[in-house]
């Protein structure tokens, strides 16, 4: 098993009711699989919301395999400026 930290912002924070989650996952879990898990936890509140994924503060492809200790963020549409 691996431990990852999920940082939550904006709509994701609102949908999950927290700014951070600590999760234990199977070795070999991908960001796409974690995305699915996060959406299930959100109970429909993230349906239709486009999420980009960042691992250790860098955008990564959807099927990136996670490592123990990774910091993951599912980034909803940004709104700077």
């Amino acid at each position, binding site marked *: 098993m691996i431990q990852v930290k999920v940082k939550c912002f904006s709509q994701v924070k609102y949908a999950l009711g927290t700014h951070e989650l600590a999760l234990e996952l199977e070795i070999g879990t991908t960001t796409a699989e974690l995305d699915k898990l996060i959406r299930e936890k959100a109970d429909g509140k993230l349906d239709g919301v486009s999420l980009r994924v960042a691992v250790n503060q860098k955008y990564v492809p959807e099927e990136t395999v996670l490592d123990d200790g990774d910091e993951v963020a599912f980034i909803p549409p*940004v709104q700077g400026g």
Partner: protein
Amino acid sequence: MVKVEIVNGSIDFFPPDDNRRQDGAELVFNGRVRATEHGENIIALEYEQYDGMAETELTQLANETCKKFPIHDLFCNHRIGKVSVGETSLHVVIWSKHRKEGLEAMIWFISELKKRVPIWKWAILEDGTRIPSECKH
């Protein structure tokens, strides 16, 4: 050269520079908070960032802009936290030899900022209610 900073508090504006002998254009953009959102009066926007990644992405974007366009320098300050109506949330200055490349660089930089820098905002209504801000202009 680029200078980028994300600040929680009022912005220190970059001053005009009269010592640039090769730059014919000094372009200044100040993004300010409007008084209405979705037709409702607001008192402020509240900005949230992904601490660390937002400044890293903004710096990378500023460097990319300097490579993509023949400009000399790009300085940018972005506020987070509560920004009241009328105040500046985004301050960008670009220096270039001619206006055309500077103007094009400014438009591209701000458009990309709104696509990739992990910063979000909420509008605060007069009664204190927070609603998502969806302005993408």
